[in-house]
């Protein structure tokens, strides 16, 4: 009996497992997809930590170490790369007809979505653990302690899933890898126009501070950062988890609708 037939008999969980396994194997077989999202944010962390260390001398800067302040940024960048890769994988499946063939099997739409997100989740977990280990190894301190480090990982993976759901939605809606890539600069604009690199209350330019205040990415970063530099800041954590969870729900719903539309077309 084929794996797909087994999955059809085994229910939704088996279906999810099969597709997620395929997604993870694909990520492992394309080292560039795994290595670049991990290495690039660490290089930028090193550069920014050295380049902006002087900012910690400003009155009101929340920590004496820019490394502690900036440690949240690689988690966000890792999430962006995971979203990009996950979206591109799905777009490729659409372009080469794999999704159409899956549509002929008894596989449920929910399982298809969850399975496709498996690769992004895997990349997110691996990169988040590495960022944390490297950060601590080069001298970052986690103010919230070991428990805080675990919550940091959970929050980072939740944020990663939020971006991956967005990537999935774009892939399903557009059905093209180029379209997914086209959205990548937008992610970076959101990151750079946030409080990722400077505390919001110390941003001098009013227009920039206003954009950063309305930018949800600021709250995601601040939630991650609070565990590193403040300790247990329930307000920052709640905002960060709430925005990430809301994004997951919203983009999963939109993805589900886009998938139905695409399968009807098939």
């Amino acid at each position, binding site marked *: 009996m084929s794996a797909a037939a087994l999955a059809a008999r085994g229910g939704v969980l088996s279906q999810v497992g099969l597709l997620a396994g395929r997604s993870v194997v694909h990520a492992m077989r394309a080292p560039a997809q795994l290595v670049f999202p991990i290495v690039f944010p660490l290089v930028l962390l090193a*550069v*920014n930590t*050295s380049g902006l*260390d002087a*900012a910690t001398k400003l009155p009101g800067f929340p920590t004496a170490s820019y490394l502690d302040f900036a440690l949240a940024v690689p988690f966000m960048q890792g999430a962006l790369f995971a979203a990009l890769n996950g979206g591109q994988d799905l777009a490729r499946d659409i372009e080469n007809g794999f999704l159409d063939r899956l549509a002929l099997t008894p596989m449920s739409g929910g399982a298809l979505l969850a399975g496709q997100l498996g690769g992004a989740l895997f990349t997110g977990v691996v990169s988040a653990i590495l960022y944390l280990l490297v950060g601590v190894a080069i001298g970052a301190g986690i103010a919230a302690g070991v428990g805080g480090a675990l919550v940091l990982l959970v929050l980072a993976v939740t944020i990663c899933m939020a971006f991956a759901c967005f990537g999935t939605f774009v892939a399903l809606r557009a059905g093209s890898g180029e379209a997914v890539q086209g959205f990548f600069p937008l992610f970076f604009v959101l990151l750079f126009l946030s409080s990722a*690199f400077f505390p919001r209350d110390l*941003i001098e*330019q009013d*227009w920039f501070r206003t954009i950063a205040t309305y930018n949800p990415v600021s709250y995601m970063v601040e939630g991650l950062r609070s565990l590193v530099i403040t300790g247990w800041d329930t307000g920052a954590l709640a905002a960060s988890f709430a925005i990430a969870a809301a994004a997951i729900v919203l983009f999963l719903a939109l993805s589900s609708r886009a998938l139905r539309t695409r399968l009807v077309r098939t």
Partner: protein
Amino acid sequence: MSRIGRTRSVALAVAGRGLHNTFTNPALWMPSVLFPLFFFIAFAGGLSNVQNAPGFEYGAGYTAFQFGFICIQAAAFGGVFTGFSVAADFEFGFARRLMLAAPNRGGIVIGYVLWAMARAAFVIAVVFAAGLISGMSFEGSFADLVALLVLSLAVSIVATLWSAGIAMRLRTMQAGPAMQMPIFILMFLAPVYVPLALIAGWVHEVARFNPVTALLESSRGFIAGDPTKVALSAACLVVLFVLAASWARGGLRSAERAG
């Protein structure tokens, strides 16, 4: 027609075609404009308070400080984007036809360089206008402005020769990261956010010996009306030009061998 005349006609034809393609297709010119413009907005807008850190000394203000970086970055990435176009020309077969038709193939590379320089000048003009609109102060003279443009165009030449060398060797658009990443890393291992003296850790040591540091200091010196390390920058650019030209020449030979 003399050898120089043949080279010039090939170079002008290649540059003219490139400029026509670039300015009639927004997908080609927009990234090279938006990328530096975005960095300019993000850095000058979001990080300006860092100019109040003890030891930060640059009289023209943080927007001008960042403009000095953006000029060099726009010029370098203009070269990289031109490298992408060279790779695309090879991937889609146009470059091979061009090499068959051109009486002097060196003219093809010169044409690509002229194209990149025009592109860089356009991007710098746009970012400069954006800077002036946002209140950036340019304290240099007209001569300083010209010197800044010459410096940026020289960077554009070196970056184009580097990228074209890779494009002509690999002849695929998948070579993009190989063109982009070394330049990106060199750019950011230099005083991007603060002057060299305020950079901490190992990056400070790397930045001291990174030629991009001298280029940035000169660029910012011209903007502030206080030319800095001009001779060192010129020397760095001459060395980089010789290396990049040799690299591009090797790439051209490789493409010729591949037919």
